[in-house]
């Protein structure tokens, strides 16, 4: 317990707000998000399209471009404030202390450079060593992510590798400097099932071994069930539920979380899927109060007022006026 007080968490996000200022109006894509990530912890950030999960990841790493802007809150990487930090400082941190892995590795990898060139460039951007030493290090990094014949692969161009192998390269690059935090945005969504299994096993092992905190952004509840310690569910730019993976998946407190879980087919049961009616509202026409209320079966008068994210159990919170679990446990 005392250690948790002494060392700051790998990542502490506090009331983060990001807005896009478009001709159609202001869009609050990240609307007061708070997250804490300890070293070696894996947090699943779950949501459907438009929930703001990717924008949360971009905001944490300072990748928001105009017309978007972080309008409030704080992001602390091992105690150091990133919001408002100057470009040079962010540049020094990104890739070294905090790294990102994206859904499409073809977009992260430069198509006209050999794997060796881009990996050694990424290494030498933050470390001084000879080219030969750098080459040896990236070779080991490739071997570590399970790439067979790493010497051969170093000479290859990205298009010569399969999708799974490209994603392994992207992961190897992200982990080159042993960062405190890795933000992975749907890194296995484009991959086949057997390849996804390989990547999940790899990421899990590397993060645990090195004490890297991992935020795994995904729409797939089943994937986070397999790897995450904790889950945060996002809806319309806000976190609606957060807690340990077993609690959230076995006893969801927010009606949206419950609906999401029920929408996934259960093996051996073939009856009609319980469905959440409607779809996520546009951020331009958010209903006042609870954003989920128009789709919620138990919405009542109270839901016209915006609910806060309140404790619903040990280390759990939900943004609902009528959470589905007893709040007694929290007291």
């Amino acid at each position, binding site marked *: 317990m005392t250690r948790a007080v002494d060392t700051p968490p790998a990542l502490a996000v506090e009331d983060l707000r990001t807005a896009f200022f478009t001709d159609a109006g202001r869009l609050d894509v990240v609307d007061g998000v708070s997250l804490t990530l300890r070293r070696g912890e894996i947090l699943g950030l779950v949501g459907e399209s438009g929930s703001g999960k990717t924008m949360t990841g971009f905001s944490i790493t300072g990748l928001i471009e105009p017309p978007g802007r972080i309008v409030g809150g704080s992001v602390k990487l091992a105690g150091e404030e990133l919001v408002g930090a100057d470009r040079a400082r962010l540049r020094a941190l990104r890739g070294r202390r905090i790294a990102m892995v994206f859904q499409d590795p073809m977009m992260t990898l430069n198509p006209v450079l050999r794997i060796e060139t881009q990996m050694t460039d990424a290494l030498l951007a933050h470390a001084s060593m000879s080219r030969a030493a750098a080459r040896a290090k990236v070779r080991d990094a490739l071997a570590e992510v399970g790439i067979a014949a790493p010497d051969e692969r170093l000479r290859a161009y990205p298009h010569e590798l399969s999708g799974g192998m490209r994603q392994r390269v992207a992961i190897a690059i992200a982990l080159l400097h042993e960062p405190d935090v890795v933000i992975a945005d749907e890194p296995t969504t484009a991959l086949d099932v057997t390849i996804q299994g390989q990547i999940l096993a790899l990421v899990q092992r590397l993060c645990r071994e090195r004490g890297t905190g991992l935020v795994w952004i995904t729409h797939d509840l089943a994937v986070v*069930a397999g790897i995450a310690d904790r889950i945060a569910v996002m809806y319309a730019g806000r976190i609606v539920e957060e807690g340990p993976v077993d609690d959230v998946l076995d006893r969801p407190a927010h009606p949206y979380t419950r609906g999401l879980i029920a929408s996934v087919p259960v093996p051996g049961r073939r009856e009609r899927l319980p469905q959440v009616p409607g*779809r996520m509202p546009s951020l331009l026409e958010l209903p006042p109060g609870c954003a989920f209320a128009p789709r919620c079966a138990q919405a009542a008068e109270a839901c016209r007022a915006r609910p806060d994210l309140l404790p619903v159990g040990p280390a759990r919170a939900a943004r609902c006026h009528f959470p589905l679990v007893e709040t007694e446990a929290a007291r």
Partner: protein
Amino acid sequence: MKPPPLIEAHGLSKVFGEGQDLVGRMLSRFGLERPPRRVHAVEEVSLTIREGEVVGVVGESGCGKSTLGRMIADILQPTTGEILHRGRPLGARRREKGAGLAVQMIFQDPFSSLNPRKRVGALIGEAPKVHGIVAREDLDDYVESLMERCGIDLAYKGRFAHQFSGGQRQRIGIARALAVKPELLVCDEAVSALDVSIQAQIVNLFMDLREELGLTYLFISHDLGVVEHVCDRVLVMYLGRIVESGPAAEIFRAPNHPYTKALLAGVPRIERRRTAYEPIEGDMPSPLAPPPGCRFHPRCPFATARCREETPALREIAPGRLSACHLNDATA
């Protein structure tokens, strides 16, 4: 005599090859043939789809499942083999008026399959108008009944495809397919691009339509959870061949082929927490140069010398269940 099944396919193969380019033609004039690059996308696939059945096709990218679906939908012609629709070859039926309408396809991306310059009413109403399925004066009512059946708000009849969300667009694609009163819907990854809550809505719509209209489906997907939920029978494909087939419940409970086992073991499920994934090694080989013998042998933990040389035949291992694996001989 029993009526013939809705669809019966025998020995279907599809080879994609590059046509000879200028250099190739010049080389062949000098007698210097370049080896042609050919992909055997589908090889020796036979299947039966009975009326009212939901048949699933699962497999990873490059396994040939989409090519198979397109051949059944008569969009692609098989290189060899034939497809019978109610006992008559598809090719012969093609010249009959309206015969091509019996099989309709639902695509993964409803946006690229809908004409962006047409309004919803016209998108759904065009085919039945052209094929004379409904009288012109009844067309409006017909389109509206289809929209209602597929859960599209009638107020949106005058809108364009880009004004809809992904789920709504998929509903439009389904309504358009239903407009020509098909018997079989070939759904190629029809729910894969949708969000979970929307996916559940569309899966339920498919199942409702099955009951109301007695529709038959060929349901192609890489999502094993959805396939298990909706399908009666399943075909598992790997590198162009069927490696296992049988009743969905049995295959998911007790897979026989090592590939099917690996595939099922790799599926993340909500009930599987903090799983230590033990994935099978290696990537799918390139279909340009498939391995000899059993195509799965380089990744198979049980492969023997025989697997490297001899292609296993798809044989019955239990009533209604087929598997293509040499290991079944050893235990028999």
